[in-house]
């Protein structure tokens, strides 16, 4: 599966059936609809996919950190748009 298709699939799943909020989903949909802008940034797209797959609102809450939260996703989006 192409990276952007995979990104769309996981974003839709987390947005429509998980806890991904609108304010975080919107900039990801922007990435998905402009793949030409993000050519050569596979590493960051892949990182975003993994973070969405492991998205947990309470990732920072426990003693150990085995999930990704909105701060991680926001930071990856920031790197993608640099």
């Amino acid at each position, binding site marked *: 599966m192409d990276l952007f298709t995979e990104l769309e699939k996981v974003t839709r799943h987390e947005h429509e059936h998980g806890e991904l909020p609108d304010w975080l989903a919107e900039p990801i949909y922007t990435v998905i609809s402009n793949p030409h802008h993000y050519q050569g940034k596979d*590493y960051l797209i892949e*990182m975003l996919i*993994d973070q969405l797959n492991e998205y947990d609102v309470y990732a920072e809450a426990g003693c150990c950190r*085995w999930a990704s939260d909105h701060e*991680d996703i926001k*930071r990856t989006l920031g*790197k993608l748009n640099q």
Partner: protein
Amino acid sequence: MTVYLDCASTTPTEPSVAEVMRRFIDVDYGNAASPIHDYGTFARMAVDHARGQIAKLVKVRRDAVIFTSGATEANNLAILGLRQYGTQTARRHVICSAIEHKAVLEPLEALTQSGFEMTLIPVDSDGRIIVDKLQRAMRPDTLLVSTMQVNNETGVKQPLTEIAEMLSEHHAYWHVDAAQGFGKELESITHPRIDMISISGHKIYGPKGVGALITRKRNGQSPPLKQLIYGGDQERGLRPGTLPVPLIAGLGEAARCALRRHEERLAKVTSIRTRALAALAELNPVINSPAAQSLPHYINISLPGIPSATAIEALAGTVAVSSTSACTSHTMAPSYVLKAMGRSEAETTSALRFSWCHLTEDVDWGAVVAILQKLRQHTGH
């Protein structure tokens, strides 16, 4: 231009791996243990990401991955890290096969100096561990069994599924040195009975100087390892020291490529093997890598009468090959792996290991065969 055919020793670097590493050398050079600003936080995210990419290949949680300097260190941690537990519980018996890499044999030998007993398991003529002999060597006080996934000299895949079955009723810890097979043969190391797996970056088109020990929980418990060095709580305290983020990110990218491009890579190396086998057949060699049992990245052959060093030197302008493991080839000692397979002295001293990968350029196998034929005529064999 000499074609590099020594990928079992070390692989070329995948271009995307070099690109990812450059990012963490030139731009995002933060310390993953300082997530108090953007540099540190992004470095920590990169390490988490790499951990996840490696974990996917073994089907474990990402917190199972402990980064090390390579497979040698990972093997040392898996073996020597159990010393205290073995001593406390009076389980001082360890087992490995006769064809393990020095990075496993030597730490196990070190254990014998502190009262442990070591049993070496023989292999058959194909270079595969004899599981029946392993079963018979198991004792109530067996602490650890260490077996490799793929042999580094022959490319022969070891019977991990059968070993897993045999160990299902035994409490011994099981360590698999997967330095040669990780990312190339995907299925066998996902077996849940395997407690610890060692991997290396530079064998899977990643950087040198990084690897990992992957630990798997059994009955909710990780293997009771003790750290070998002190100085921080990185990697659950098992491997203190600042994490080399560029190397770790590179290893993660290499693992990602191994998973995503597995089929296309396999097709390429298999086609190289088909051509190599067809060409080398003219020399009527002794085959030390039976095709059905080996990774398609290798052929190890013996050409009795032509000393390995002579052949390597004669081939040097055409292909770069080796005879044994890179860690022992400088000693010019005949291969202990081939000896364990029952090969004669004439066969062990004339072994050649050809190993390639998906990045290998076209090889003029006709020229390789012609050089070896000429050598054979000179030696009269």
